[in-house]
Structure formats: C-alpha cells, structure tokens
C-alpha cells in the first residue's frame, strides 16, 4: 500500500552519535523573571532527546532560543552540520535554512491554506523561483512546484494524511492538525526536528499513531529529535536521553532509567509519593 519513501528526509551530514547541538550555560531573562539559569544540554546525531519538567520550567523558552525566537543574554548554542554555527547570532529564518525545523505547542499552522500548501510552505527554503516566473507559472516555477509536490507526497504517505491533502487546515480536527504540523516540519528536510508537546490533548490512539510517526522518522531516516512531552509513559518509551528542567535550572540529565531513579527529579516532577512509574 505505502509506496515507500523515495527521497532523503534527513539533511544532516553527521554520523549517528556525533555531537550535533551544544547548548552551553544559557541564561535568559524577561525583565525580572529569570526563565533559564545556566542550562547546558548536548544532543547527538540521530538520538531522541526529551526535555521534561513542570509547567513554567523553561522548556519552551529553551527551544525558542534554539529556533532563534528568543536571544539569551548569556551562553552559547552551537549547531554542527560539518561546521559549527552559532545559533544565538542567527535569525529564525536563517536557522530554518540549516534544517532546524519545529512544531509548536499551540498549533501554529496557516489555517486558511490547504494541507498541501502548508506542507509546501515547509519547502520554502528549497524553492528558488522568483516573483516574475512565479507570476507566470512558467518554466522553472512550474517544474519546481511539481518536483516538490512529489517530495510532499512521500510525507503525506508517511503520515497517512492522503484523504485530507486538499482540505483547508482550519477545518481539520485537532489530532490531524498536529499531524499536519509535524508534516510541515518534515517538509523542510530537517537535520534537527524540534517537537513541542506533539501529543498534548490527544486520545491514546492518536498518541500511539504520533509516537509511531516520530519513531519512523528517527529510526528509518535517522533524524535527530528534541521533544517536549508531558506523557511520561511515551517519553520513557521513546527517548534515548532525558533532560529535566525545574524553574529554569537543569536538575537531571541521563537515560530514562537514570532519570526515574534520580531523587531530585522525583521530588520536583514525578511526585514523591509514587517514586516510580
């Protein structure tokens, strides 16, 4: 049924296990509120790294620093794709060109556009046509649209959203919108994929599907994934490595087993009474 992925989804040139993202001693404050205090984190090629922590711990703020939406006052964020890039001095659209793609906690799709157009916008950095050829829909502009459509059809197959490809995104259910948002991030051909609560508000069947898609992208295509998620069952199952934030400070880092046994983490987040999951 599925015809298999015929394009390269992962655009990172690194080997699995190479250092890909290095967050070093990042401080971020909004006025008097200290959102992040000296957070460091290393992410290696082809792993799934999870960031967990209570609400307001600074998880999304940290990822916004990686995307270039926030600029930390101190510390550095280095991204490697054969050579180092200092993300803290780049603009969001320049970071997108490095293949760092993301989804948002509250779905931020282009809701009046069709699913296909949303995915095609994900191809933006790969499209070359200018305004004149675009206006004529001639030559390169048309060829390019058709070629990229083929890539998108691979993603549509992967995420099983064939039936809704021409629907306006605003009319879709929440679960499908989350899936389309993952698709839009994949369309960029990510070297690093950031997912901010991809399963929030889903039922268990939808969560299972989403976990499957995330594992497909990681295992079959080797894409590095950073994920924020509150469902501990999912996080412990799929991640290779978990960082725990609390009040802007990293209080734990390690494999799922290590984190579950860490007393500081248990106290801050997992709950003292239960202790284990």
């Amino acid at each position, binding site marked *: 049924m599925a015809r298999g992925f015929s394009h390269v989804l992962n655009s990172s040139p690194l080997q699995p296990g190479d250092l890909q993202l290095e967050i070093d001693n990042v401080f971020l404050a909004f006025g008097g509120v200290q959102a992040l205090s000296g957070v460091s984190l290393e992410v290696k090629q082809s792993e799934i790294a999870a960031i967990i922590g209570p609400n307001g711990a600074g998880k999304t703020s940290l990822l916004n620093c990686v995307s270039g939406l926030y600029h930390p006052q101190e510390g550095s964020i280095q991204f490697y794709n054969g050579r180092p890039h200092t993300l803290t001095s780049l603009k969001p*659209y320049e970071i997108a060109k490095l293949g760092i793609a*993301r989804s948002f906690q509250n779905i931020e*799709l*282009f809701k009046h556009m069709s699913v296909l157009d949303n995915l095609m916008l994900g191809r*933006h950095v790969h499209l070359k046509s200018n305004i004149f050829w*675009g206006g004529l829909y001639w030559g390169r502009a048309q060829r390019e*649209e058709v070629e990229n459509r083929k890539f998108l059809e691979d993603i549509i197959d992967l995420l099983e959203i064939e039936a809704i490809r021409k629907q306006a995104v605003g009319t879709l259910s929440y679960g499908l919108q989350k899936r389309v948002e993952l698709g839009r991030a994949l369309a960029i051909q990510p070297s690093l994929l950031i997912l901010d609560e991809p399963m929030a508000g889903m039922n268990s069947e939808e969560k299972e599907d989403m976990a499957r898609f995330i594992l497909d992208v990681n295992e079959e295509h080797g894409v590095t994934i950073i994920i924020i998620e509150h469902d501990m069952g999912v996080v412990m199952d799929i991640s290779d490595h978990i960082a725990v934030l609390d009040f802007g400070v990293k209080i734990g880092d390690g494999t799922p087993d290590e984190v579950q046994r860490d007393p500081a983490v248990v106290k801050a987040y997992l709950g003292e009474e239960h202790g284990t999951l």
Partner: protein
Amino acid sequence: MESGIFHTTYEKDMALRRTPVMRWRIILALTAVLIFPFLADGYQLTLANQIGIAAIGAIGLNILTGFTGQISLGQGAFMAVGAYSAGLLMTRMGLPWWLTIPIACVITAVVGALFGIPSLRLKGLYLAIATLAAQQIIEWLITHWTGLTGGVEALVLPSPKLFGIRLNTDFNFYWVILLFLIITIIFAVNLFRTKIGRAFIAIRDQDIAAEVMGVNIFRYKLLAFATSSFFVGLSGALLAHYRGIVNYERFTIETSIFYLAVVIIGGLGSVSGSIYGAIFMTLLPAVLTNIGRALGDTMPGLAGVLPFVQQAVFGITIILFLVFEPEGIAKIWRDIKDYFRLWPFSY
C-alpha cells in the same frame, strides 16, 4: 458536475482549470467581455472602464491587505504616485504613453516599499495609522511641490495615440484596460500558488511560524508592499491616460477607504473577489442614481433628498455585507459552486 474526473499527473492536478466546467466558465466570461463593447452604449462603456481600473487597483490592494494581512490606508496616495508619474513622464520628459505605464508602476512599487518599512515593527491598527501617514505625506507633497506636480492645478496629458488612432475614447481604451486587467489577473492568480505568494499568505496567517519555517518576514513584507503598489500604480497610470487629466482630489483618503470597501465586499484574499467588489462598488452608485432619476420624474420632492438617500443606501449595503457575509461576494459565489459540485445528486 465534478465526479468522475481523475488526474493522472501532478501537473494536471495542480492546474488552475482542472475540470471542463471551469474551462467553459472562463471561455464564457472571456466571450462576454469581448462582445460587450460592441453592444454597449457610451455610458455603459464608461462604467466598464471604471470597473476595469478599479479591479486592477483592488487586486493590488488585496495582495497587500487580503493576502499578506497588512492593512493599508495609503491606496489613494499610491494611485496618485502612479498617475502623476505617468503624467509627468509624458508631459515633462516627452516619453510615449505606453512607456510611461511600466515606469510609473516601478516608481510606485519603490515608493510603496519605502512606506512599507514601518511594517517591520507595526501590525494591524498601528500599521494602518503608519500608512495613513503615507497618504497624508504624499498628498501634501503633491499639493505643495508646485514646481514638479503643478500643485493643486490639474495636470493635463496629451491623448495617447497608437498608429495615429486616439486611444482615450471609451471604446478604444476599453481594450487597453482589458489587456492590463488580464495580465494582472494571471499574474496575481499564479503568484499565490508559488513560493512568494504562499509566503505572503503564511505571514498573514501565522507570522512566527512562517519565520521559523524559513520566511524572511521583513523582506517578504516589503516585497508585498512593492508588488501591491506596482499594480496600484498601474491603475493610477491607466486612470491618468484614460481621463487625460490628473488632479490630486481624485486620490484622497476617501479613495483609500473606497478601495478597502471594494476588497472587503468582494472578498479579502481573493483575486476574483477583487473584481466582483469593483463591479459591485462601481455599479451600486450608478444604479442608485438611475433609480433616483427615474423616480424623480414621478415624485418631484425626492430630488432634494436623493443624494442623502444614496449615501445611506451605500452605507447600509456595506454594513449588511459585513454582517451577513464577511467573506464577501467571492464566498457567495464559492457557495453557489459548492452547491452544484455534486449536482444533481448532492447526497
């Protein structure tokens, strides 16, 4: 009417006219506009030409306000830049009329991009006020820079001629406007199914997500201002050559608001909606005037209050549209098409 049509290539699936019905609709519309001038009288041709010029200006404004989500109150001023550029290039520099049109478009595009710079920081109502400043500044420059524009005096243009034929008669200029309108429509429709236009819509719907997906917001906002102003300048330049006279009074804030009404009533973010809106907003006052005239013979007392009744009906129509169909005439037309999509077995 659409069932049973399957596409076997992406080229066909992504074409603009995907079904025979769509193709027939276009052929029908084209035939109608080609036959129209031979059947119409002078008054109807004047109205048609006004509609054509308004449609080009409305498509221009819709690119900026409807598709990119940047509210502009500077439409009138940008039209003035187009009209005065065309007029001055012809009278002062002696350029042929057909050459003044593209140059006027480019000048307006540059001016539009310049006044688009505040859009980097300003959104929504704040941007509207910034574009209002553009309107006032340009109006002031036109009326006070007497050495260049002639100030409040009207600028008179020589008649445009092609192979010795005077073009600015209603019948002849109809074809000039039609040609430019078709080019504008084709360009705008294609723009929004390729990279640049898609980025414009993305900025309107969710600017932060667009930036994270690789769209350079500032660059694309300026590009939207420039592209929009290009076509607004075109409609200004056409108006100048059609009327043979350019006067700042035609390009005040009232013009800006008129065009905003056109794109809202026609349909924000719709190329065809811009045309429906132009037709509606041009014909409505004309129809009201004619009704008034007809009634004036039987009810002599009406003549005095007629202008006020017209204004009121005009205003009420706009309000009713905003209340009952905020997405405009384009949405009504879409609903009709949707109804007939599976007709006669729509279950």
